[in-house]
């Protein structure tokens, strides 16, 4: 039981990271990005290719994948999604669905359906907790990176001009424009940041679980869960939701994990549909 609690809490940090990009786009651009899971897996594959190609630790590949995914997100939003959103949110929603299919199949074409995994040197290490179980070092590192990412993101949104302009745009985009904010460009930056978090999430999940071209949809569901439980647009909420979802899943074990996760989701939707931390 103690071991499961530890595992669940450690998983929570990653789940929060998986969900934060989704919640940002939901809250700021008002778009449901159905390709978010695929972007996470795409980042995992990028990390794998760079790691093998350059002989780097997967953690160091973040130096390349994070900026790369930011640029992809920025361009994607500016070239494609901004134009579609002028015609309403449905076309943009459908295009993200299309993107998820394209990415999934492109990955299948290039990497085949075989399982892949990111290998790190401290894979099997763990810290004993004297009878209470053990803390796997890998999971601990992954969880801490997740929390650190959310912390830095939160700081960025709170303390910088660009961060404030992102929050202002999500509050009232007309008023934001009156303050001198180029709303479409801000959407681009928000999508860039969301995919940058997806890049980190991709490397993290790739280190703790095997991944295939089709695993993205599973992470999309987790992201949805985190968005719903935490309330859209709240980073604190995202973190807490990640822990709740992670715990629920681990306590349910491999048989009932997902089931319990979704039960929590349904209860949340029924009792507090705006999320735990919605303002």
């Amino acid at each position, binding site marked *: 039981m103690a071991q499961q609690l530890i595992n669940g809490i450690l998983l929570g940090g990653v789940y929060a990271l998986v969900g934060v990009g989704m919640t940002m786009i939901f809250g700021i651009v008002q778009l449901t990005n159905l390709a978010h899971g695929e972007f996470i897996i795409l980042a995992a594959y990028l990390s794998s290719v760079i790691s093998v190609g350059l002989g780097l630790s997967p953690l160091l590949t973040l130096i390349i994948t994070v900026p790369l995914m930011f640029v992809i997100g920025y361009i994607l939003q500016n070239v494609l999604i901004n134009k579609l959103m002028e015609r309403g949110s449905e076309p943009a929603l459908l295009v993200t669905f299309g993107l998820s299919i394209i990415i999934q199949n492109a990955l299948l074409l290039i990497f085949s359906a075989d399982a892949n995994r990111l290998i790190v040197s401290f894979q099997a290490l763990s810290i004993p907790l004297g009878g209470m179980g053990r803390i796997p070092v890998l999971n601990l590192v992954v969880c801490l990176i997740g929390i650190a990412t959310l912390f830095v993101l939160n700081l960025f949104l709170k303390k910088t*001009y660009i961060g*404030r*302009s992102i*929050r*202002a745009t*999500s*509050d*009232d985009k*007309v*008023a*934001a*424009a*009156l*303050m*001198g*904010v*180029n*709303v479409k460009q801000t959407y681009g930056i928000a999508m860039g940041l969301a995919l940058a978090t997806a890049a980190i999430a991709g490397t993290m999940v790739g280190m703790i679980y095997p991944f295939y071209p089709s695993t993205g949809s599973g992470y999309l569901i987790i992201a949805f869960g985190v968005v719903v439980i935490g309330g859209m*647009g709240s980073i604190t909420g995202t973190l807490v939701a990640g822990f709740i979802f992670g715990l629920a899943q681990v306590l349910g074990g491999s048989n009932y994990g997902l089931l319990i996760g979704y039960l929590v989701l349904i209860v949340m939707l029924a009792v507090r549909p705006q999320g735990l931390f919605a*303002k």
Partner: protein
Amino acid sequence: MSENILAIENVAARYGDFLAVQDASLCVPNKSIVSIIGSNGAGKSTLMDCVAGVHKPSSGRIFFKGEDITGLPAYEIVRRGLSLVPQGSRCFVRMTVEDNLIMGSFPGCARKGATSMLEKVYELFPVLKEKRNDLSGSLSGGQRQMVAIGRSLMSQPDLILFDEISLGLAPTIIKDIYSRIRQINAEGTSIVLVEQDVKRSVKTSDYSHVMLKGKIVLSGPSRELTEEDIKNAYFGI
């Protein structure tokens, strides 16, 4: 720079088939206060939205400091020194008062002096300093208008458009806000007041324009316009 900070020439604007503004022309002399009055739906707000770049005019030209700004996006216009305090204040309700004000200094040219400007705004509205860490969504209507005015000042504008600043506020608060507006004007900022409240805005302004059904039906120096003229123009008698 020309004598008029703002010149609106034959502007028309529509929402779909509805012609909200037809052939409106008016000037705002540098450092003056100009009021635009008219009943609900006369087209005043639409005209202001056209000037600030929130709505695109269907015809006509708008010049600010001698430059053609017709159809420019809002974020471009505020960078040139023209700021709109929108109807209903439109504060960023999930942001603190101070963050709202700092957002006002978003244009690159306004960031340098942002700290001293913030102090000025707090001097102008001391209550905002008290509530600097509160979410603006928790403030009263009058305080939100103060946030909106302060936020606009933070961009260090040469011209501020106030769209129905007194709507829904208690008379004492309106009086207070108007005295602040006069203070802002005295420091050299040109001002446009869009109001339904005829008496106060005409009394405060140098020039007045009355709008009716999308047209400007009466214009002149405020002190030369008689109450009778304004009443007739306002109601279209």
